């Protein structure tokens, strides 16, 4: 990525300002090294040791370095938690992205003027800002047995004659946890997609209209391909968030019934901070997740970098054509 060198910032009367660049990054770097890099390395190390027990602070390396990793990978609860994490994410993400796309399609229609569009957006996004812990407990109470509001509704409507114990049913619990995630996040995804579609060059839509494309055709052939990067970005960031899912499964039903809604984060928490305090096992599980997340985030990294480079190339071409000054290119590169 080529940077525009602006001379006044660089040197005035022979004074080099480069040192300020380094200086102003020091707080960030120091804190990052202390609070991010070191804990990461430390977690990795603990994963190879025998550190467990609430009061134990000394540890030694295991003779078989990967014993914790093997134990975790063959641990039935970990496997179940991993599968649950993916299941919960998939059954929340598929309806979420579909609804978000539908809303994006509706809210960006060029001929359609939606009344109260702003109000609707505010409503859709609202659940996202509320503490997930509160939301989880609230839903636990709403789906309460035998006196919860949902059971009340089901009985009043005559759909059930007796209260249903949602917390005892594995699939009901799974569906509710996924629903909470869906309910909290579809508004966010919809807003991201709407602004993505609004960012597409309007000339594309105009020429499609002139060519007589229907709204459906325009959506599938023009809109979707144009926001492909944003879609992939949404998918991966949501997946990374989903892999860290903790508050809702932990507090809705404490991972239950019988680990049916336990996620990897709930598993790690329970391993490390309850019962036998198996920090070493929890660290091994954490590092496995760390590697998966690092791979996923490197995909995001390359996507974003590619986007920059293509944006930069486009600008360079445009600049060359119109003979625009470098200052404009610098401005454009930021968007």
């Amino acid at each position, binding site marked *: 990525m080529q940077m525009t060198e602006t001379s006044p910032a660089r040197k005035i009367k022979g004074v080099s*300002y480069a040192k300020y660049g380094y200086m102003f990054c020091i707080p960030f770097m120091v804190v990052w090294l202390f609070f991010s890099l070191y804990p990461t390395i430390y977690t990795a190390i603990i994963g190879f040791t025998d*550190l467990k027990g609430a009061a134990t602070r000394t540890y030694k390396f295991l003779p078989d370095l990967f014993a914790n990793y093997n134990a975790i990978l063959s641990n039935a609860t970990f496997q179940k938690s991993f599968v649950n994490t993916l299941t919960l994410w998939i059954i929340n993400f598929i309806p979420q992205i579909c609804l978000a796309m539908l809303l994006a399609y*509706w809210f960006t229609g060029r001929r359609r003027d939606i009344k109260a569009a702003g109000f609707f957006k505010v409503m859709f996004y609202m659940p996202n800002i509320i*503490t997930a812990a509160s939301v989880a*407990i609230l839903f636990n109470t709403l789906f*309460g047995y035998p006196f919860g509001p949902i059971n009340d509704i089901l009985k009043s409507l005559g759909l059930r004659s007796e209260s249903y114990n949602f917390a005892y049913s594995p699939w009901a619990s799974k569906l509710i946890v996924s629903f909470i995630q869906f309910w909290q996040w579809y508004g966010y995804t919809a807003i991201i997609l709407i602004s993505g579609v609004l960012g597409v060059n309007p000339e594309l839509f105009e020429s499609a209209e002139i060519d007589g494309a229907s709204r459906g055709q325009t959506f599938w052939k023009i809109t979707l391909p144009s926001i492909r990067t944003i879609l992939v970005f949404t998918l991966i960031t949501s997946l990374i968030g989903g892999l860290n899912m903790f508050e809702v499964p932990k507090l809705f039903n404490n991972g239950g019934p019988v680990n049916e809604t336990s996620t990897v984060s709930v598993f790690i928490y329970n391993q*490390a901070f309850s019962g036998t305090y198996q920090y070493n096992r929890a660290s091994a599980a954490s590092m496995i*997740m760390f590697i998966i997340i690092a791979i996923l985030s490197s995909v995001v990294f390359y996507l974003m970098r590619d986007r920059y480079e293509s944006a930069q190339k486009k600008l360079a071409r445009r600049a060359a054509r119109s003979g625009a000054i470098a200052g404009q290119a610098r401005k454009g590169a930021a968007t």
Partner: protein
Amino acid sequence: MTGTAITKPKQMRKQSNLILYVVCILLAVLAIFPFYVMFINATRSTYEVQAHAISLFPSSFLANNFKVLSDKSFNAMTGFVNSLIISSGATLCAVYFSTLTAFALVAYSWRLRQPFFTFIMAVMMIPGQVTSIGFYQFMYKLGMTNNFLALILPAVAAPATVFFMRQYMMPALSLDMCASARIDGAGEFRIFNSFVIPIMMPAIATQAIFTFVSSWNNLFMPMILLTRKENATMPIMVSWLRGDIYKTEYGAVYLALAMSVLPLLIVYFVLSKYIIAGVALGSVKE
């Protein structure tokens, strides 16, 4: 043939408009309904909730429910103040130092500038939660468990915020004006504080809202670090509501939840315009 071709799309549009409004209104109701039930039931007695869990109108047991909570030493004010201290501290650290780091990336030419930016982008997506065990052990060794600084200081290194600030700063900051401030004798740090910060205010406000909310809502890290009751944040206190002593106190649980949600709802409705715009901006700037 031509007649139907003209009327059909019109009819279809009308129909799909109807579907659009029905779906949107349903979604809006879905967003409000849980909170509505929560606020109404916060004013109702356990007996009333047991008889009918849903009521259109509030009752008169608000004070009663509040007393039940205080008897169980559920002091919402403690959680509120603790959360406020941690979230404000983390927000100040995150926006100030991220802007400073972005300034270093935009205003100066230094050899490691590009590698440093690449590094920021690379670590941006990695969540702190996956390395929580090492973090906890480290804090324990330093004697910093139950110390709010353990939750505030890490905010100084917020890669995503730096990224956002840089994107905003690139077109907004005029290096020529920096240079003329320099000629007037201002030091680099002064230029940052009295010239760059005011320019960056819109971006700082956006990022402040999101940092504050995500810090306020965080449960995992505070829960492992803050083990003393008097240090509990709002989400930690909410997590206690699953305990057995609240099993039969329906009204009180709703009230406790309402107290944890109300501040956020107020902030949200006051700032919703900026918040929605901030979310949208996030995608455009990526």
